[in-house]
């Protein structure tokens, strides 16, 4: 009998009972991104996902963690074995990080949230415990529910538990800062920077790996500017813009306010809110069909929509 079948963890089952099968309901994490996707309908009952690391296998580079666990606590447990994950550390929970789907500032080095979720367990609108994906680092069995759930803002199911891919923490990590480097020359100068951040004046680069490689990469960066070691990345403004990497070169502070841009990914943290985005009509219709399939009565996170996030 498959160890994957029929979830029998009483903690998860009681979470499913709590979510139940009727009435508007949402899961609250630490509310670090509570405003994403719009305001909840005021009658919505709030539940909190269970906490705790269920299983962690450093040699497999996978960890099974309940959705209410804080990312910091999760990462502390991984760090004891020299590992980390792609989930961003910004005060939230594992479930919240998956629901929102935002990547860490160092996503070039740590990976993206959307490829980090190997298995997801969630409570469906009908109050059933559903699993998607699988426990191994490679898997193409069936339709890819984990991908659909990342960034879904809890509108398709309320997350109970996930299996997350972990990564080794490199031997050395350094942040470097320059006042005179062209940030767009960094990707062609060093092989695998873990982050390239730019605020319009200064450039920060995170280099990671074997000490000897980091030192030689640092030397190569010298060709495009003078870099000094920095304590870490700059503070990131509150609002988040999603641009194409090639659009960053023409960022305009008049529009963004103060900003920090992630060169190579296109994420921009800015003091001004991002202009509203909208889905193409056809994609919007497909989005609605998807929502309707998973939540026909609209009870999960009512008021919240991925189409306006």
């Amino acid at each position, binding site marked *: 009998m498959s160890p994957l079948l029929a979830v029998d963890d009483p903690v998860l089952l009681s979470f499913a009972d709590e979510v139940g099968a009727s009435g508007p309901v949402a899961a609250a994490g630490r509310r670090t991104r509570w405003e994403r996707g719009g305001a909840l309908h005021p009658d919505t009952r709030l539940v909190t996902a269970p906490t705790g690391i269920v299983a962690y296998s450093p040699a497999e580079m996978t960890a099974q963690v309940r959705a209410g666990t804080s990312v910091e606590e999760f990462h502390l447990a991984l760090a004891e074995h020299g590992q980390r994950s792609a989930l961003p550390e910004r005060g939230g929970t594992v479930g919240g990080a998956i629901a929102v789907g935002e990547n860490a500032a160092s996503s070039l080095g740590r990976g993206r949230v959307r490829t980090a979720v190997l298995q997801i367990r969630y409570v469906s609108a009908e109050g059933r415990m559903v699993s998607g994906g699988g426990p191994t680092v*490679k*898997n193409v069995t069936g339709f890819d*529910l984990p991908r659909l759930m990342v*960034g879904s803002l809890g509108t398709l199911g309320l997350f109970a538990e996930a299996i997350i891919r972990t990564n080794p923490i490199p031997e050395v990590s350094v942040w470097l800062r320059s006042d005179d480097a062209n940030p767009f020359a960094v990707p062609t100068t060093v092989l695998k920077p873990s982050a390239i951040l730019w605020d319009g004046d200064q450039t920060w680069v995170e280099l990671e790996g074997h000490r000897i490689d980091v030192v030689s990469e640092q030397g190569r960066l010298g060709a495009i500017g003078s870099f000094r070691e920095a304590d870490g990345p700059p503070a990131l403004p509150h609002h988040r813009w999603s641009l*194409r*990497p090639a659009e960053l070169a023409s960022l305009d502070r008049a529009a963004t306010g103060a900003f920090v841009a992630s060169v190579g*990914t*296109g994420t921009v943290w800015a003091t001004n809110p991002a202009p509203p985005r909208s889905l193409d009509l056809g994609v919007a219709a497909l989005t609605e069909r*998807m929502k309707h*399939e998973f939540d026909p009565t609209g009870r999960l996170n009512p008021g919240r929509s991925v189409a306006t996030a």
Partner: protein
Amino acid sequence: MAGTAWSDRLRNLTGRRAGTTPVADPLVADLQQALSADRVHDSGVHRALMKKDASVFTGGVSGPLCYPETTEEVQAIMRIAERHDRAVVPRGAGTGLAGGAIPLGAPIVIAATRMNRIVDVDLDDRVAWVEPGVVNLDLTRHLQPLGFHFAPDPSSQQVCTIGGNVANNSGGPHCLAYGVTNAHVVALEVVLPSGEALMLGGLDAEPLGYDLRGAFVGSEGTLGFTTKVAVTITPNAPAVRTLLLSFDTIRDAANTVGAIIADGIVPAALEVMDQRITEAVENYVGAGYPTDAGAVLLAEVDGLADGIAIDADRIGEIGRAHGAIDVRQAATEEERALLWKGRKTAFGAIAQIAPDYYLHDTVVPRAKLADVLDEVYAIAERHDVLVMNVFHAGDGNLHPLLVFDARIEGKLDAVHAAGSEILAASVAAGGVLSGEHGIGVEKQAYMDQMFTDDDMDHQGRLRRAFDPVCRANPGKVLPMGHSCADIAALRSVPSEVWG
């Protein structure tokens, strides 16, 4: 007879007898009008060619075969299919190993072959826009002079298409460090079975909405036809080291793999071959592998020269600590290329041993590799089938290769019986049914080993949002009872027809 029942069902489904070409079929006339007469084929010969893919499964029945050249033509085909209430099946190079491209219910076959342009390479965004029929290796060859490549490198890369890679979320030896296809697709233009063309995902950092791009990748042609793909291009590493480690037993090789990963090294590739396949490879291409070792491990690290030298030494040490009898580093690019040639032609090599093979594909936790391999050999022996193992060991992706002669009475049954025991052993070890080949028609019946009814019901919901009537590639992935209602006839395909 089971086969008769199957053709009856097809007749009900298609309104005509499978395998015959009625004169002036209005469906064919509409398709020819929308494309051109020379790009719609309905002869018995053409349809027969579409009946199979690279799997052992038979019993496919093809309808007309179309070669669209544009997104608009694919849209027109979908609309005609809808009007004629006919299913469609997307097809790339037909190298799939799970029967994904096998036509069920005499569907219109939409071939990607003539949509094979590399539309744009955008170095600023580090993506390439390609049409679905572009051959995987052709894309990498195109990118090489620019200092880039397309990271997923299935062993079939000389022929398989990017559209097929997307549909199967394909992997390859070098996906260990770089990730499988899903990690390299940023946007997809798809034509839904309704005929609507949509752009899923986007080049921006975090596209708005559900990750419909991610849901489409790996959907095995059941959500629509992808007409354009934006893939990330990966910079070529400045340095690479390739090691060949030899072991007395495959257990030692498997345990070495687990120990390398546990040590915090993420090699570009970790591939294991057992003695039988290594001998076959040596006879076939003479790649320089030792034929007296119980198993070999091909390990590759890439990156910056200094760091990978450290990793390569460490891999050698770990190997020796786990019983490696020989550790060799490829000294020249020729030697490295030859070792890889051996690995990538492994499946060609077995043709000298027996006429038929069945390549399995499961994943197990790395710590269980050695035990599950023991079981695989025992299962094969019990069923009197020859098994060889050549696999993506780094991510626990087993590829037991059952080699046989289908002309021998009962052999294919034994192969299927052994295969289903291998699946059960993998899942029981905490593994999954497929690491890269997909479910297709091959593993539908086993889905309930991994998923509950609720789980599969939710997979079905994902599918229906894209394709409410399940017109695209019906009869695949989800098992009977979880598939779409309107193509109900397909659900009860007797398993004998696949024999």
